[in-house]
């Protein structure tokens, strides 16, 4: 990193506040950048603008009432939030959702992963300057949201699952609609790739930008595609299978150098793998009930539990302490974006201001989840 004395022109160190109203901070994130000319010396994130006290609300709502609140954390991937929490409480209660519900959960969660990655792809490319991708990505995202809307009436904050299973049976024509989507989706992924993968500007803006080594990523607790981009073959769907993931065949894409381009390739490939999981799941949804037998009033035993799932952004964990009443004594959420954002400081040091935008994009953060 060049210091003040090493630069060609005599520039003074200035502090620039980026955000919280900056369009490419994906919400209300403020980054205080210490700059030498256009070079970033240090970055400090100021978060909390969207703090709503979700963990406190969890102590004042019953276990069932808390689920819709969680949809408002990572609103891009509300289905994952819901799945993680429902499974945590099921684990504490010692029940398992019926296989049919497990399959519906996997299909919906993977569709949600696709829609989350599509939103990331569109906005990330838009930040760097490729506008076209955004329009294509949102075309397919719309198809996913239509499936969600048909299934539960909501497009974003879906509240799809309940503790013990799912609330709704799949609708008529669900299978055909999903089959059609997963048949056509890989071709659309190829389309996005023709726009970006070999694009010289894209490569110039992402190759070697925001490099983080596997060791540093683990030390900083980075998870999800950002960790896999650094070459760590670790995915909770494989490492600690939950729901019905152990029945499915899929690959875990990894990168090599851990730069922005690697993370882009990992997410692109993950979308294909998600489509593959959905295609397998839709063919073998078992028959049976969609809700486990469960009393109306949920009172877990006294104790604590930690359960985590692979959300589109990384490891989403819930640590629940139960005092045997109908409300959690402590409802802790371990949000992936919050922990991943910590890596920003390390990744931007020595780069240009314009790269900060690329790195915020590549970390795939959602401020609703960071601030909770």
């Amino acid at each position, binding site marked *: 990193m060049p210091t003040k004395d090493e630069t060609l022109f005599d520039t003074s160190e200035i502090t620039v506040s980026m955000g919280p109203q900056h369009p490419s901070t994906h919400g209300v994130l403020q980054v205080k950048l210490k700059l030498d000319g256009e070079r970033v010396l240090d970055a400090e994130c100021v978060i909390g603008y969207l703090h709503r006290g979700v963990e406190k609300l969890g102590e004042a709502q019953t276990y069932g009432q808390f689920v819709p609140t969680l949809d408002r954390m990572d609103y891009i991937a509300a289905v994952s939030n819901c799945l993680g929490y429902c499974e945590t409480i099921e*684990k504490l209660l010692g029940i398992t959702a*019926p296989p049919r519900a497990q399959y519906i959960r996997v299909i919906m969660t993977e569709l949600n992963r696709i829609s989350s990655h599509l939103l990331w792809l569109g906005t990330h490319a838009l930040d760097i300057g490729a506008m076209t991708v955004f329009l294509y990505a949102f075309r397919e995202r719309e198809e996913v949201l239509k499936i969600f809307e048909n299934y539960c009436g909501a497009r974003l904050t879906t509240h799809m699952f309940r503790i013990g299973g799912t609330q709704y049976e799949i609708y008529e024509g669900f299978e055909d609609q999903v089959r059609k989507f997963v048949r056509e989706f890989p071709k659309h992924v190829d389309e996005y790739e023709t726009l970006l993968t070999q694009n010289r500007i894209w490569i110039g803006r992402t190759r070697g930008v925001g490099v983080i080594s596997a060791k540093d990523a683990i030390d*900083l607790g980075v998870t999800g595609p950002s960790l896999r981009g650094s070459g760590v073959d670790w995915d909770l769907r494989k490492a600690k299978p939950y729901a019905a993931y*152990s*029945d499915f065949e899929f690959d875990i894409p990894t990168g090599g150098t851990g730069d922005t381009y690697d993370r882009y390739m990992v997410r692109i490939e993950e979308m294909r793998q998600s489509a593959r999981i959905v295609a397998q799941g839709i063919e073998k949804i078992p028959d049976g009930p969609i809700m486990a037998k469960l009393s109306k009033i949920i009172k877990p035993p006294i*104790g604590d539990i*930690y359960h985590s799932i692979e959300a589109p952004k990384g490891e989403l964990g819930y640590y629940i302490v139960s005092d045997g009443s109908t409300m959690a004594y402590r409802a802790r959420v371990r949000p992936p974006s919050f*922990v991943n954002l*910590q890596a920003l400081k390390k990744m931007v040091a020595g780069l240009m201001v314009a790269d900060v935008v690329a790195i915020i994009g590549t970390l795939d953060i959602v401020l609703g989840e960071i601030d*909770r």
Partner: protein
Amino acid sequence: MAEEQKDNDQTEKPAAQPAEPVKPAEAKAAVPKPPPPPPGAKPAPPAAAKPKGPQQEPWSSPLVDAIKERFGGEFIKSYSFLGQNQIEVKKERIAEIMTFLRDTPISPFNYLVDETAVHWPKEEQFEIVYILYSFEKNAHVRVKTRIKEWEPIESVVSVWATADWLEREVYDMFGVQYANHPNLKRILLPEDWAGFPLRKDYNIRLQDVEWVRKHLGIDSGQKYYVGEARDQTPDYRTPQD
């Protein structure tokens, strides 16, 4: 059930092969059965009045023995609840214990998943919970320690860089004082906010009315604020209730 037991297995390799799909009959088994204690564990003492629900099972492993050997005076107990292993230690040498856990060849817990706190006002204590994960062994462990109110605890930022923000959040929400933290200040709430919201004596309807008036220029309409509510009887809920 099968999945919970797997969760606990220290030597478990990442399960790549698909497991048996859950049968409906198994799904119906609503009464949780605690997993069998690992070999070498003492059998659980016979329960007097047949306790309801899952119970803590004693847990011993080479890891626990190693901690007992190196930090004998610090070790309190180790147990497994619902297949999840937990170690309770005293707070004095927490950073040393964490460094040991990170580097131990038995099961190197190189990833700090989460660090958080639980407030137990009746015992006037905060429980600090560290959730650790070992990539090599694919195993989780929870380390718990207890501190009194305003009692400082050693920061683990020097062990895992992740702890930086996690500890700032615990400070922000509970007021836990970390010693040797590089940058201990509020993270989610404004820096001049009064009170620590996730404490049990902080009523859910509370807010810093003064702060809202000063910075937003409005009356928040909330009846309570921190000072007054401290005098009211707090609405405690503890496991004994």
